[in-house]
């Protein structure tokens, strides 16, 4: 099931520092909800393991994260795909842009397009938008904390695209 999200965060650090942290596997590991490992695996690629807990559901996703379209310190695209075994899979990407903000801070603007499939889509579609938003909020809250403060300005979930049988 496709999820599209976009949002903005104002961070209390300058663009260079934010950029550096966006490229730091240790920082990313701390910020990604449920992340257990996040290790450099090659140029701009990482191996990651994350545990996803949604109520009684408890699944472990293993996969690869890649940074691309790198335009330091302005923007990159972070993409990943993970296999959750019986639970299914998740894949997606986010373009992240940094702009200078007032008081020496940085405005982080992101656009996420994610897809989940397998059992979690088949059985949990009612929760997917909410979980995606919660994970995004958690990530940026932690990231803001890591860079020394910040505020989430907006997180918007677009209506998920459904094709066959759609109607309302």
């Amino acid at each position, binding site marked *: 099931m496709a999820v599209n999200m976009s949002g903005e965060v104002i961070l209390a650090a300058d663009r260079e520092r934010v950029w550096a942290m966006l490229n730091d596997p240790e920082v990313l590991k701390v910020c990604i909800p449920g992340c257990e490992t996040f290790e450099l695996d090659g140029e701009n690629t990482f191996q990651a393991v994350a545990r996803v807990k949604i109520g*009684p*559901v*408890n699944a472990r996703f293993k996969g690869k994260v890649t940074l691309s379209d790198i335009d330091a310190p302005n923007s990159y695209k972070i993409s990943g795909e993970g296999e959750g075994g*019986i639970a299914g899979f998740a894949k997606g990407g986010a373009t992240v842009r940094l702009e200078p903000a007032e008081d020496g801070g940085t405005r982080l603007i992101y656009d996420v397009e994610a897809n989940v499939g397998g059992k*979690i889509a088949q*059985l949990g579609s009612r929760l997917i938008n*909410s979980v995606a938003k919660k994970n995004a909020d958690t990530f940026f809250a932690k990231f803001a904390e890591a860079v020394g403060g910040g505020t989430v300005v907006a997180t918007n979930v677009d209506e998920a695209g459904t094709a066959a049988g759609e109607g309302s």
Partner: protein
Amino acid sequence: MYAFDYQRPSTVNEAAALLANGSGAKLLAGGQTLIPTMKQRLASPPLVVDLRDVAELRGIDRTNDRLVIGAMTTHAQVAESAVVASTIPGLCNVAEGIGDPHVRHRGTIGGSLANNDPAADYPAAVLALAATIYTNKREIAADDFFQGLFTTALEEDEIITRVSFPIPERFGYAKFPNPASRYAMVGVAVAKGPQGVRVAVTGAGQNGVFRATDMEAALTNAFTPDALKGISVDPSLMNSDIHGDANYRAHLVTVMARRAVQAAAA
């Protein structure tokens, strides 16, 4: 299902001991969500701790101005309880609307609250009624207990023992069920009591149960359905899925709130 070990302790302390040390054990408190999840292999606890024999988790009592319900009390027991009917009759209706008769014979109030499904009925009632959740370690106010989607204040080895409700002047719950699952697509609980007027909404929000403060203010002025005219929740904070989008859910919150007030007045 994956294989697991099974224990059936008879006291809360024994149960807590089994949960300790990050064992990954899961409590079985009716199992109406846990077992289907395990059947799908989406959960694989190494140990299941069945609370059915823990006598201290049972019972429904009225003490002074409070109604106290043991954590392992089933939805059916609440629905049929003369004590509940004579103190917070609307709570019988909440319990009677959960799942279906067979589910109500197994599912429990403690299990429901610990799971905190964003579409479950009890969280709205407990939050609106400003109940207190007692655990083996402490007591937690409803406002502190619910922390978003499937998240609660409970620690890993913490067990809900009972729920204590201040007896309100009025309480009502109105639910718009998802036509397929019969979970709440929108459920609104409205209470007027010692803590003032409180309105709690389940099923609709992106992050689980929440209080509708604008509605509370309006109902504090006048506890009538009409007081809610023109008051709505922000659609951008509502969930959307194939059954209903955020705008529809936001609209239903107002409709169900009006009906909950009506039910409370009845």
